[in-house]
Structures are given as structure tokens and as C-alpha cells.
């Protein structure tokens, strides 16, 4: 496992260099959602006994932790296709596991920063929820899944266009349908059945339950953990595929 810290350190250096730009970019979408859906459209709407803004923030936390963790895929692709930095990792005496660990941790770090941005924005909208260890555990598991998936996808795609396609067909639909903006229970049963299979649905439910001070479902946590382990294993196997 030696070497994971070097991979992670390199990502942290880049993150530090871009931090102000990243914070600004991480704030834009959640801010727009909060203004449009939370304040303007949902100002008088109550969902499951909470104001819509209160309902929305945990959903945004789950969604942003997913998209930001998955965003590491683009970074890896830029390193791989444009700067050829991936060769530097391949030529180093580090195992695939160390490489994947470093990149996954970088993805999770980005996700945590994005969550911190949303929670800060929430304060400006007067939302004070309960950020317990279970809340953070759900965020970590969710970002673990999507950062691992990101590494796997980054190793498999052959171009940026492929990468964009994965985002359009998997990440975006999940972001909108996985319980971010409305309770999944409002959809027909067949649709609920499909959405039940998506990790984001369980992440959103768990984050929301923990934020509302309720007891989240243990099953959801187990499922997130299992999905994370599967994605991580796939990522490990995909690293060799990136070699020609």
C-alpha cells in the first residue's frame, strides 16, 4: 500500500492551487437550486413536515458529494490524455491499490469540501440541521462509492467524450431522480423499485434522516458500504486495463 500518500499529496497540491476557483464553482449550482427551488418555488411548500429548503439541503449534500467525488474522473482523464501524468504513477513502484486509494481519497476530499460549502450556504438560508456522525458517515460512504466509480470509469474510457457520456447517462439522471429534490415515494411503485437500486437514493435518505435527527436505516448504510466495496474492486481491476 506504500505510495497512496504520494498520489493523494499530488491531488491535494492541485486542489490547494485551485481552491478559491473550486469553492466558487462548488457554490454556484447549490446556490441556484436553493434560490430557485428552495426560496422562490418552494417557499411555502412543506415536505414530510419540513420546509422545502430544509428538505432540499440534505438532498443537495448527497447530490454534490456524488458529483464532486465523481468529478475526480475528469481530473484523472486530463492527467492521462493531455498531461500524461498517469505514466508517472505507472512507472513508480506503487501498487494499483495504492494508486486507487490515493485518487479515491482525493475524490472524497473534494466531496467533503463541497458538502461544507452547501452547509455554509444553508446557514445563510436559516437552515440549522443536525450534523451527527451518522450524517457524515452517509456522506463519506456516498463519496467513497462515486470516487471509486470515477477511478474505474477514468481507467476505462478512451476519451473525454466517453467520459461526458457516462456523466450524462448515469450521474445526471441519478442526481435528479435519487431523492434529491423530492421524496422518491411520490413516484409510481415501479419507478421506486428502480430508484431503490441506486446508491444515491439510499445516500439521500440516510443523509436526510440523520440531518433531521431521525434514525437512518441500517440497511441503507450496509448497501452503501457494499456498493463502495464493489466499485473500489472494479476500480482496482480497471487500472491494468489502462495500460496498453
Amino acid at each position, binding site marked *: 500500500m506504500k*505510495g497512496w500518500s504520494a498520489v493523494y499529496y499530488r491531488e491535494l497540491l492541485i486542489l490547494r492551487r485551485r481552491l478559491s476557483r473550486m469553492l466558487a464553482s462548488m457554490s454556484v449550482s447549490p446556490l441556484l437550486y436553493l434560490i430557485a427551488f428552495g426560496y422562490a418555488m418552494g417557499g411555502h411548500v412543506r415536505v414530510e413536515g419540513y420546509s422545502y429548503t430544509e428538505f432540499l439541503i440534505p438532498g443537495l449534500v448527497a447530490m454534490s458529494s456524488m458529483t464532486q467525488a465523481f468529478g475526480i474522473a475528469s481530473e484523472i482523464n486530463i492527467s492521462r490524455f493531455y498531461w500524461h501524468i498517469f505514466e*508517472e*504513477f505507472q512507472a513508480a513502484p506503487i501498487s494499483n491499490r495504492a494508486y486507487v486509494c490515493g485518487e479515491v481519497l482525493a475524490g472524497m476530499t473534494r466531496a467533503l469540501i463541497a458538502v461544507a460549502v452547501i452547509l455554509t450556504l444553508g446557514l445563510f438560508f436559516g437552515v440549522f440541521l443536525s450534523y451527527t456522525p451518522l450524517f457524515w458517515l452517509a456522506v463519506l460512504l456516498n463519496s467513497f462509492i462515486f470516487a471509486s466509480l470515477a477511478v474505474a470509469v477514468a481507467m476505462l474510457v478512451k476519451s473525454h467524450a466517453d467520459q461526458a457520456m457516462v456523466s450524462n447517462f448515469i450521474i445526471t439522471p441519478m442526481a435528479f431522480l435519487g431523492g434529491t429534490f423530492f421524496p422518491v415515494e411520490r413516484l409510481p411503485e415501479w419507478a421506486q423499485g428502480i430508484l431503490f437500486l441506486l446508491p444515491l437514493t439510499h445516500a439521500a435518505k440516510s443523509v436526510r434522516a440523520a440531518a433531521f435527527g431521525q434514525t437512518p436505516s441500517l440497511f441503507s448504510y450496509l448497501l452503501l458500504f457494499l456498493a463502495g466495496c464493489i466499485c473500489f474492486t472494479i476500480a482496482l481491476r480497471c487500472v491494468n486495463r489502462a495500460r496498453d
Partner: protein
Amino acid sequence: MIKIRNLTKYYKNIHALKGICLHVPEGELFAYLGPNGAGKTTTIRILTGLTQLSSGDAWLNGFHIHQHTLDAKRQCGLVPQSVNLDQELTVYENLDVHGRLFHMPSEKRKEKIHELLTYIDMEDRKDTPARQLSGGMKRRVMIARSLVHSPKVLFLDEPTVGLDAGIRRRIWALIKKIQQNGTTIFLTTHYIEEAEFLADRVAFLDEGKIVANDTPQKLMARLGEWAIDRIADNEMNTVYFETREAAGTYSPEQHESFTLRRVNLEDAFLSLTGKKVSGKAPGQKEKS
């Protein structure tokens, strides 16, 4: 130091390497010469763990590249053909990340980076982001980066490609200096003068096969010492002579222009393969 036995590589239906056998002893500067697509980069990529071999064996400092991959990787430094510096990181950070990837302790890493920046004469540029460096400086930083972990073998894949003549010579001087410090160097190039100036031994690679492997002097001596390039009827031929005196006896035909010059490695390659290192031969070859 480097031992290769029957190395083959297939890319789907393309047979890129066809049973390469090589031995590069410790401290040697070995040049691997061939036209584009001959398999030079593929060989380096296999030896440094970037590409998987199809069959055969290779050892770096006694470590089998497949069976003891991580140990084999520790033995070598790599300067790839395309610039692969982290453009957003500074010169120092690029070297530092490399040292960390090779598990170097903090103090040793700092010391070595300082030493190498002085070595490549770029101590004053250590805090400059890589993207702000010139092409020649980037190459020097890449060479320094490959030396951070003190490798036994250094692989240089076309290290001066795209650089102007002055910078190229500066890089050559740096490569010679590295060899004098005891590092074995495996260099690929299609610049004839680069191989002639730097190499202790040269292997010619053509279509995935080694067609000759000897010292530059011996490879060239097979043809003689002097050559005359004759151009007649839009065709160029080369005639080779053992001595300058023998070349002096050459009598040109009518409407023929000719140039006398010393034999070089390009001639040796051409005589063995019928091709130029940098492309197809323009005309038929002759030997006197």
C-alpha cells in the same frame, strides 16, 4: 544491468516487437536507433512497466520485470517522449511528488532535489510552475525528476525531440554527466548525431527486430570511412570508400553532382535495412 530475452509484443494484429534479445552492461550508454514505428518506445514502455509484454523475459539489475515488478521499477528512471510534468505544480513540487512515489524519506528527498536542481542549473526556478518553463527547461526538469530516487538505469525516450540544436547539445552534456556518475543509460533516438555523439553501443531496430548491435565505430567501419553522395537524373546514390585517398580517385559521370563526407550511422542503418532512420531511402545504395 538490462537483460532482455525473446521479448515480443502484439497490439491486436500488429506484431510490434519480434523476439528482441539484448544485454546492456552496467554503466553503458546504449542507444536504440530506428525509424518511427520500429518499436523503440514499446521496448522502453515494457521495461518500465507502462506496457505489458506479450511474451519473453526482461531483467533490470537482476529483477524480473514481470515477477518482481515493483523492485524492477525501483531500479529505473524514465524520461518519456512527451512532456509529462504536472503543469500546475512547481518544479520543486514535481520532483517532490516523484520522490514520494519512490518512498524516499523527507530529509533525503529534500537534499536530493536541491542537489539535482543545482546539477541542472535550475535552483533559481524551483518555485516556477512547470507550465511557465521553456521546452529545454522542461526536458531538464524531467531528467532531474527521473534521477530523484537515484536509479541504476535511466531510460530516455527521444529526450531531445523538438528541441533546437543549442538546447539539444546542452541536454547531451547533461546525459554524459549522468553516465559519468555511473548510471546505465538506455536511449532511444532517431537523431543519428545524437547516437554517434553519446552512445557506447548502438542497436538498430527495424520493424520490431534488432538488425545490428555494436559500437558506432564498428557499425560504420563495415562500410568504410568516407562516402560520396552522387546525384544524377534526380536519383541519389551513395558510394563508400575505405580511405579518403580512395575516395579521391572517384570520377563523376557527366551531369552528376557529388558530395564527399564521412560515413555516419545513417549509412550503416541504410545499408542494413534499405531505409533511413528518419524515413525511406531516397535512392538505391551502392558499396565500393
